[in-house]
């Protein structure tokens, strides 16, 4: 019985063992499976890591080989990272020469404030483009343009500025040269205008001076011979005074014309401007035997303008007409200046000549800078005229017809009420 029990016990034990073994084996199997899966996961992770690394490597290669400067900056301007192009741009020999230092060290003093403001905007989330002058670590001065965007972390907070910076020195220099060139041309144009004016002025002043001398000499001669009663001298002496005033008027005009000043806007009577230009260009029109006719609409509304500038426009148009007719030896040399009435709020001025007209192929170019058909022209007159007219809110155009050219430009008229106020003002002043 005992042996049976033992046997049973053994059997039971054996069975239990077997079950345990099976269970153990099962566990081991599961464990192995888990391990395999774990390995698979690890492999997967490794793959991701590898790819990440690969990506980073690729990005870094791109950035490193990027010809423009690429850099990361912290909010306080500390340079976090910079590529080799960036190092070259700021004349840094090694990365540590600039990394960890403030970008402001290479920003020119006058651009510090602008730079800070742009930094602030990027860290507020904006993308900006800004230009500044830089003094590199070696003290070289150059111009730079930066396109900057914010870099955000996982929570969306801006933690750095990513900037791509380009050296614009050469571009800037070319621009500067262009501007200087233009200024120079404008100066030349101004000088040549002034040269012409000086000649015109000499001739123009000769008239009243000759008259003054003649009247005065006539008086002296009569006084010497005693064949004159004092009252007879009043009229010629008054003429002397008038001619002196005429000379003074010419001088005043030249002074106004030459004076370099900000536009002085007043309510301008366009008819008055035309009359004064005719007077002022009388020498040139006389010299080229040109007849100037005026058709001025009465009761024109006034225009809000710098009268000297508008005079310059009319003057340029008259001068062009005179020269066009002189160069082609036109038989009839006539200039008609009209002020054309308009119902609306526009005043129109027309300068019509009897010259050769304008070739159709170039009529669209006549207002271009440096465009000229004259042998010694600079091509500034009409271009300047257009900018003056446009700055006054008007427009200018050229037309060619059989037997001459017509230039007309418009100016904004002042509503009648204001015009009256202005008139009242000028009466009291």
């Amino acid at each position, binding site marked *: 019985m005992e042996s049976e029990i033992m046997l049973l016990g053994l059997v039971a034990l054996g069975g239990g063992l077997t079950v345990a073994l099976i269970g153990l084996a099962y566990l081991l199997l599961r464990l192995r499976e888990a391990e395999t899966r774990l390995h698979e996961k690890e492999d997967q992770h490794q793959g991701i890591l590898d790819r990440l690394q690969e990506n980073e490597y690729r990005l870094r290669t791109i950035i490193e080989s990027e010809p423009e400067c690429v850099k990361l900056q912290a909010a306080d301007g500390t340079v976090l990272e910079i590529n080799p192009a960036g190092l070259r741009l700021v004349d840094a020999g090694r990365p540590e020469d600039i990394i960890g230092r403030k970008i402001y060290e290479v920003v020119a003093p006058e651009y510090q404030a602008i730079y800070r403001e742009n930094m602030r905007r990027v860290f507020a989330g904006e993308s900006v483009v800004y230009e500044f002058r830089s003094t590199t670590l070696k003290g070289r001065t150059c111009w730079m343009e930066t396109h900057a965007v914010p870099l955000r972390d996982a929570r969306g907070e801006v933690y750095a500025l990513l900037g791509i910076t380009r050296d614009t020195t050469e571009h800037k220099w070319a621009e500067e040269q262009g501007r200087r060139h233009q200024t120079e041309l404008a100066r030349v144009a101004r000088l040549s205008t002034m040269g012409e004016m000086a000649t015109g002025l000499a*001739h123009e002043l000769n008239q009243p001076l*000759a008259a003054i001398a003649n009247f005065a000499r006539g008086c002296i001669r009569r006084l010497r011979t005693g064949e004159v009663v004092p009252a007879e001298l009043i009229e010629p002496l008054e003429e002397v005074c008038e001619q002196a005033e005429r000379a003074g008027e010419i001088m005043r005009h030249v002074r106004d014309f030459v004076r370099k000043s900000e536009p002085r806007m007043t309510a301008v009577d366009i008819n008055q401007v035309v009359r004064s230009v005719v007077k002022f260009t009388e020498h040139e029109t006389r010299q080229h035997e040109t007849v100037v006719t005026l058709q001025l609409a009465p009761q024109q509304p006034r225009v809000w303008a710098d009268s000297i500038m508008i005079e310059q426009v009319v003057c340029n148009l008259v001068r062009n007409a005179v020269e066009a007719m002189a160069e082609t030896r036109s038989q009839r040399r006539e200039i008609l200046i009209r002020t054309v009435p308009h119902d609306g709020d526009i005043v129109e001025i027309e300068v019509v000549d009897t010259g050769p007209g304008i070739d159709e192929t170039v009529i669209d170019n006549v207002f271009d800078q440096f465009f000229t058909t004259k042998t010694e022209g600079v091509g500034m007159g009409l271009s300047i005229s257009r900018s003056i007219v446009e700055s006054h809110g008007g427009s200018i155009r050229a037309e060619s017809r059989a037997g001459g050219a017509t230039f007309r430009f418009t100016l904004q008229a002042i509503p009648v009420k204001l015009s009256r106020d202005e008139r009242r003002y000028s009466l009291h002043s």
Partner: protein
Amino acid sequence: MSDATVFIVDDDQAVARSLRWLIETVRLKVETFASAQAFLDGYDASKPGCLVLDVRMPGMSGLELQERLAARRAYHVPIIFITGHGDVQMAVRAVQAGAYDFVEKPFNDQDLLDRIQRAIVFDAEQRGKEVQRAQLRALFASLTPREREVLDRVVEGLSNKAIANTLGLSAKTVEVHRAKVMEKMQARSLSDLVKMAMQNSSVTS
């Protein structure tokens, strides 16, 4: 000379008036014109004097007025041009085209008046010569064709005999014609006659 008139053409009325005031001090008559056309329309060619002309004027210029006067093929008063400073080329052109003189602005009053006086004297001389020439032309016109033929040969220096031979006349007839020519031409001597003939040919040629 007091009957001489100074014609002034200047579009600048103040200058024209001042010239009048100055020129009247030497007791000359003055007429002013505001344009070349006005002068052409109103000028009386029979009046002696001179023309003071502004070279540059709108419309018809002084030079053009000079051309128009020349084109009339009749005597006109001598022209004094008034030129602006630096108009030397124009002045040269004017003088080449027959202008009497020019003054450059600004001018000295005495200088201008002197030139005006000289021009007036020149005008009087020209008018005198013009009268002589007219008289001479009248004398020549009074000769018969035959007398002209004889005169032409006398002037050539041919003898009466030679003239008779070339014209197929008798020496006697030539002598009669010759005396008639001397009489009609009011010539006192042969040299007188030759001079007149030369003057006339210079006028007519």
